[in-house]
């Protein structure tokens, strides 16, 4: 079952993806500092993006850019995931930027970044 999956992607990259995901979620769940949580979520996000890229990779093919003339589409890797990852990265950036600006506001009000103390609204 896993073989078919691994066949067209280097399994090292896959392990990298899984590691990134684990680090990301582990960091998000255990770290108390809000900024660290955001960074951890960013890591998880890059993990997923990496996974997306590895899906499109066909071994022995080159990047889907018509740089040199005479490069036919058949020699190129599947371009769709790469396009998607671009948007995903943009979205990741937007979320991070917005997160940081809100964190500034939160810091102004709470004086702390410890997530377990930012819970005036509960119950």
């Amino acid at each position: 079952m896993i073989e078919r999956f691994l066949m067209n992607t280097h399994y090292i990259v896959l392990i990298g993806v899984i590691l990134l995901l684990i680090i990301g979620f582990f960091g998000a769940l255990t770290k108390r500092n809000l900024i660290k949580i955001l960074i951890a979520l960013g890591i998880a996000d890059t993990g997923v993006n990496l996974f997306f890229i590895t899906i499109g990779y066909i071994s022995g093919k080159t990047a889907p850019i018509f740089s040199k003339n005479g490069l036919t589409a058949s020699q190129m890797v599947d371009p769709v995931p790469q396009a998607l990852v671009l948007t995903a990265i943009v979205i990741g950036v937007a979320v991070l930027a917005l997160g940081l600006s809100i964190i500034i506001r939160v810091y102004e009000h709470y004086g702390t970044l410890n997530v377990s103390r930012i819970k005036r609204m509960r119950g």
Partner: protein
Amino acid sequence: MIGPHNIVLIPVVIGILAYFAGKLVRPVREGLTLLSSLFVCYVVLFKAGLNTIGIYTYNFSLPQYFDGFRFGNNGFSWYFAVIIAFSYLFVSLASFPLVKDKEYHGSFYLFFNIVAGALLGIVYSRDLVSFFIFWEIMTWSSYFLVVMNPNTKGKTGLTYIVFNVAGAYAMLTAMLIVYSYAGSFHFDRVVKAVSLMTNSTVFFISLLFAIGFLVKMATMPLHIWAPDAYTESEDSFTPFFSGTLSKMGVYGFILFFGMLIGFVNIKGVYEIKDTSLIGYIVAWLGVVTSVFATFRAIVQDEIKRLLAYSSIAQVGYIVTAMAVGTALGVAGALYHALIHSVIKLLLFITVAGVIYRTGKNKFSELGGLITRMPLSYLAVLFGIIGLAGMPPFGGFASKWVIYMSLIKNHYYFLLIGMIVSSTAAFLYCYKLIYGIFLGHPSSQGLMEVKEVPGFLWVPQIVLMMVLMLTGFFPGYIVPFIETAMKGIGFSVAFNSTSAYTLSAALGGFNGFVVINVLGAIFVFVFVWYTLFFPKSKRLHRLDIYWAAETPDENTPLHYGYGIGAELDRIPWVGMSLRTHITRFYEKTGEQISGIASVLKDVVFNGDGQIYMLYAILTLVSIFLLMGR
């Protein structure tokens, strides 16, 4: 054409109209309500009369999914419709002077008319959905009338709404189960479907329906809301509340257990002495309710609370009579339902008038009003004679039928329980009339009090006449009861059919002869005593036998309000007065709110990280549970 299906809209529309029109000119509200009540009486008596047995399917532009609402009319609904229509008329008449200068004047008329419309809807509906719709409208509109006057405890309204909504939802569950068998909500399809249900489903359904209706009739375990709700609801609405709304429980109970499920079906489930187990248990609940409520009524100091407990007790009789499911029992229940409505309307309207005039609502603050309010005294006198079930008036006839039904079917222990409570009823009847009218006035102000407002006289006099009519001619309304019984498929229960006598099962009595004998003797002795004897000397109020002294103005002479104080010392009765079921409900209430606060603090504990943890845990659990 105005018929059973759109009579419902008239009071509701007029209620809304009155609310808004009243903002411009205030008396429009009274005028519109009176108009609507008169029109409803006219339609109920003539237009949607006994003979118009018609089924009106009314799609109300509802999705075909519900195959439309159905309204219809037969003897049974006509019987209750008459009770509703006339109590709607009398209470609206009584409420004109009482609510005139209150600041919730507008919303009172809005909700009062909506409740009246909802009741008519209940009585005329021929399918489960419209029955439930109007039941719910009745619940929430009467809720607003209960919490209307500001000086009541908030808890009353909440207890009222929780109990009644829970009862309604128990009914809804049963209706949905029936629907899943019958495929349609119409009564005729439901009746067919119930007959082919398994025993356990029938038992479960009848249990749920029983809960729904027993809540409305305030039977013992489910009665917590009733005393407070009756006492603290708006004074002029209480007659309608206790006189007519509790009868909806009676209507529903007989309709569902008589016609829809059929006593024979639930009898098939488990049988005790040729009645169904549920019926027997409910009958015992009715008896227990009447005994406990009667003793609790005697010790009350507040007038309306005494009458509230008395209503619970009297409806307890009705529950017992109809729960056993015999033809005579149901007939007794119908008869007593009518009589109880008349009596409670009469008493509550008069008491509302007394409270309106004196501003006091406790026995210990009233007394000696007989000289100032003779008509109200007479009204309450007729009321308590009916309430106690004394012969010359209708109260006796309906109780007699109930007793006969219990004796005929050998439910002797039920009858003994009922006797305990109906004998103890004499005590609170006497306390009611003594506390307000007889004895000595507790404060000087009571001596300048005027009679109850003129509008109240009409309902008082008419209701007194109805009591007399049913007393002197007990058999007069037997034909109406029999058409009502045929409406739900019961065989005829009474033997004779003459207007004067009432005879069934083991015996009979002639109401007309009773009143003639009583009248003749009374007139003879009265004439003899008043004319042939020298005029008796009028003594001063304080010139009484007082162990060789004469009491002065501020000696407390109005002892009568303390009736029932000695009940605590009677072992059995004392024990019944001390047991309170409210503690059980309060504990469940605390349990639920305890769970709620634990749940709230655990699940929504405010920490963003924990929320993320929940997400991850859900994912992991989905993988583990559904992974295989």
